[in-house]
């Protein structure tokens, strides 16, 4: 007798919890095994809730040591590598390797992007990078799991919290990714995953004053509207053509702010006092 299979409920992932959409809406999609799956159709309120928990989680995440954040991102690679993923083998391998790649930036990117600036005066002047804050990231559906990993890891490695908006067609894969996140020691709220209509959710994100940045992949016909709304709060928008190659340091820099500190000193920073 054939065993009756267990059909997994596809859920969103917000604040470390697996949730349905508060709206109760779902979108019927074709699942990896050919059956129909019902993917949560994320709503305006889901996004607002996610922004709230992301904001709460971001400070503590950024305050962890770079070493610790690097280990958690590496752990994400371990968790992804050890589970069945409803995607192609090539995508799964690329995604795992990408997580390993970005994990390694954690305690190094600051060294590349920060500077000690030789100012004329008795100050030690340095520019450091600090997180943008809360990002809403929309991976391109074509990039599948690699796109989600690239968006999540580049956001998190720079100390941000992020809300991933994943197209409903990838709902099952997004849920599998969220499960890996959940078991990776990543604190709840740092990376949140919403599913549904990306255009609809981005429109909501673009009028939410507490969203510091948008990270967008692929063609976005609605970009002019997103940019128009961003003007109100000077929201940063980072554009990427695809996740095919990992974000380079200067692209990672776009997910951070340069903060310059003039720290008083007794002698000019350039060397011994001239007097």
């Amino acid at each position, binding site marked *: 007798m054939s065993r009756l299979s267990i059909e997994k409920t596809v859920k969103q992932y917000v604040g470390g919890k697996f949730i349905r959409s508060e709206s109760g809406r779902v979108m019927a999609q074709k699942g990896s095994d050919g059956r129909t799956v019902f993917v949560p159709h994320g709503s305006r309120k889901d996004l607002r809730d996610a922004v709230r928990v992301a904001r709460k989680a971001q400070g503590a995440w950024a305050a962890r040591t770079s070493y610790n954040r690097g280990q958690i991102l590496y752990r994400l690679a371990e968790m992804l590598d050890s589970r069945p993923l409803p995607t192609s083998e090539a995508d799964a391998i690329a995604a795992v390797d990408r997580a390993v790649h970005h994990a390694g930036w954690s305690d190094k990117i600051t060294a590349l992007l920060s500077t000690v600036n*030789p100012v004329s005066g008795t100050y030690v002047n340095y520019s450091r990078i600090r997180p943008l804050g809360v990002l809403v990231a929309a991976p391109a559906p074509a990039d599948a799991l690699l796109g989600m990993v690239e968006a999540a890891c580049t956001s998190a490695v720079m100390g941000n919290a992020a809300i991933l908006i994943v197209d409903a067609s990838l709902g099952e894969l997004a849920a599998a990714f969220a499960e890996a996140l959940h078991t990776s020691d990543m604190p709840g709220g740092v990376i949140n995953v919403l599913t549904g209509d990306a255009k609809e959710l981005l429109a909501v994100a673009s009028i939410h004053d507490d969203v510091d940045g948008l990270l967008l992949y692929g063609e976005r016909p609605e970009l*002019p509207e997103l*940019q*128009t709304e961003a*003007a109100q709060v000077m929201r940063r928008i980072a554009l990427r053509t695809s996740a095919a190659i990992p974000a380079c*340091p200067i692209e990672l820099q776009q997910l951070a702010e*340069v903060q310059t500190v003039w720290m008083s000193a007794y002698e000019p920073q350039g060397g011994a006092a001239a007097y």
Partner: protein
Amino acid sequence: MNKKSESKPTLDLEGALELSPSPERIPVTIKERYGHFIGGKFHDGADESLFETINPATKETLAHVAAATEAEVNQAVKSARAAHSKVWSKMGGAERGKYLYRIARRLQEKSRELAAIETRDNGKPIRETRDVDIPLACAHFFYYAGWADKLEYALPGRQAKSLGVAAQVIPWNFPLLMAAWKLAPALATGNTVVLKPAETTPLTAMALAEIMQEVDLPPGVVNIVNGAGATGAALVGHGDVDKVAFTGSTGVGRIIMRQIAGTKKRATMELGGKGAQIVFADAALDQAVEGTINGIFFNQGHVCCAGSRLLLEESIAEDFLERLQRRVRTLRIGDPLDKNTDVGAINSPEQYATIQRYIEVGRKEGANVWQGSATAVPDTGYFVPPTILMGLQQSDTCAREEIFGPVLSVLTFRTPDEAVKKANDSEYGLAAGVWSEKTSKLFEVAHRLNAGIVWANGYNLFDPASPFGGVRHSGFGREGGIAGLWPYLEVA
């Protein structure tokens, strides 16, 4: 330290220091009329578009200036495009750098003349144009000149290339300095420029255009069009512009960002601020008084990063305010061309009215308004004496909105946490200051402040090697340092 201010000797400096004519007082050449600088040549501009630029300290007209029409803006962008594709982007970095070095040197040679023009057109004291604006403008060109042949080191692991034509719109508070901040990194990275100076302060930009001619800068690499908002809108909205760089108010920044939405134009926005100046009880108080004054009364408070919110630890608030008021009573307000003048004129009647309106709002909202200076406020031009608003609440208008004038709002706090919370409770995030003699506290507080620049035991210090720019509604992008190259480059 408990003595009340009444028992302390007051300083009456009225007439105590004779007028000391500065060398900059010697008349400088200001033409009767200015137009535009396009393709390496000066153009008169249209007669019907002429507007006046005045000396705000005397209200006398200095010159008539033409406002560029859309056709003139188009001509300027065209000449910038041609210069970019045919000359500037093809020239070796070392050669580009040599032009910038030439400009820096020529600015140094003409610094007396430039300071004299700037002070007349802007109203700021000669002490500031002579010691801050002009030397820093020279330094910016000199600094970025050296980057021009080193761009392969600007983007780690990637080859860099220029963006193309940059449209740059600058404000009236540091006219020549802002032109330098905009032009130097743009030119070093191989971009060409159309610059629009503020309509109330066009004169030093036109002097700079003469320098561009004198140093044989290839025609079209730098173009300057004069005019007000309409000219600026035509410039940033031009279809063949690749990059928009703006310094000014957050309100105008929003308009520009909406205007360029949906285009491929890159942007740098240096916008408003409401800088917090945090003074802890363990600060060197007299130095903090000096810093507070530099923070808000420097350049009549017309500074986007001005330390306009003074946050005092409660235990020293009374003592500190006494010291501050005593020091403010020694500031000399008056003729900007007098080298002893500390506080000059407000740049325009419009800004003068704005400041008066805010002071009135502060009064209505219950603030205790205190004004002081060592000399009488002149009745010849637009002058506002140093003003301190006490007894404010965090939610009051004058504690939240940018006034852009010599008006300091005072608030108090009890713990470092409260200080950080109050400082960060702003839509802006350009700059902040923190005063303490305890290093661990300085680092902790500095790194927790949501601001692009933090001065620890100092304020309003600028250097071309030091990246400047804001977070949140104060804009994005940096000017100065290696970070100042990034907004003008893309990955090749």
